[in-house]
């Protein structure tokens, strides 16, 4: 029983519509926003931001493929570089906040409130 027995042979010749990539990107972005909103651990919230950046990168690369130009890939390369810089600075900030408040719950970081 192989994969080829499960589906008719035409299935393996189908190509993927561009909208499939874009909708996958939208789904990943929405999951990222949901994680950002509902989770209370600051490291997980930070990972949600990385997931959203990844979803946007997929859109850039898909449109780069569609228009046959490499510019979208250059842009997603820049997004990656900015994400790396953001992760370095953000995690350093998390380290510092943890030193002062000894907590990772975002509810506890309210010293600037009011």
């Amino acid at each position, binding site marked *: 029983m192989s994969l080829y027995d499960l589906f008719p042979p035409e299935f393996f010749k189908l190509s993927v519509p561009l*909208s499939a990539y874009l909708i996958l990107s939208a789904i990943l972005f929405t999951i990222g926003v949901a994680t950002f909103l509902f989770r209370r651990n600051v490291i997980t919230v930070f990972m949600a931001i990385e997931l959203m950046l990844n979803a946007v990168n997929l859109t850039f690369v898909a449109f780069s493929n569609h228009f046959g130009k490499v510019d979208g890939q250059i842009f997603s390369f820049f997004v*990656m570089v900015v994400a790396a810089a953001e992760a370095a600075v953000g995690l350093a900030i998390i380290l510092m906040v943890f030193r002062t408040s000894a907590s990772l719950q975002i509810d506890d970081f309210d010293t600037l409130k009011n």
Partner: protein
Amino acid sequence: MDLVLFLTFALIAVACALNMALQRHPVSSALSLVGVMVSLAVLYVLLGAEFIAAAQLVVYSGAIMVLFIFVIMLLNAGAEKMTKKAGTAHFLGFPLLVILLAFSAWVITNATSAMKPVKFGAFTGGGPREVGWELFTRYLLPFEVTSILILIAIAGAYRLANKEME
């Protein structure tokens, strides 16, 4: 074969993303995020972006996730406690997210229905040679600005991590 590979790795990506959202422990979330990034790298190869796929593996699932794991280890982060302080995000968040997803899916299907489908091998301009050529000719100034940004980020991260407690 395109559709089979796309469906497989799209499903892995969505499953890993959901797992990231639902896991209580940050280490499990981090590992799920690595799964998302690796399957996205496969999708980049399907879209003809070999260089970006390699950079995704090296920069994202290599460097950035190792940084995350290091911070989780340093802070000894355990499973998170659920609190009731979320407020409006808990009531309004979920319906608004469903509306966001439905609306974006509707716009995408309407706007791209006439566009030609993606075929593996149709676009070959994503190798390191082509990307490097564009990067060092047309996009030279943004590239140099990014290097300054990285330098500032290194200095800032060093300064923040070294700061003594008052």
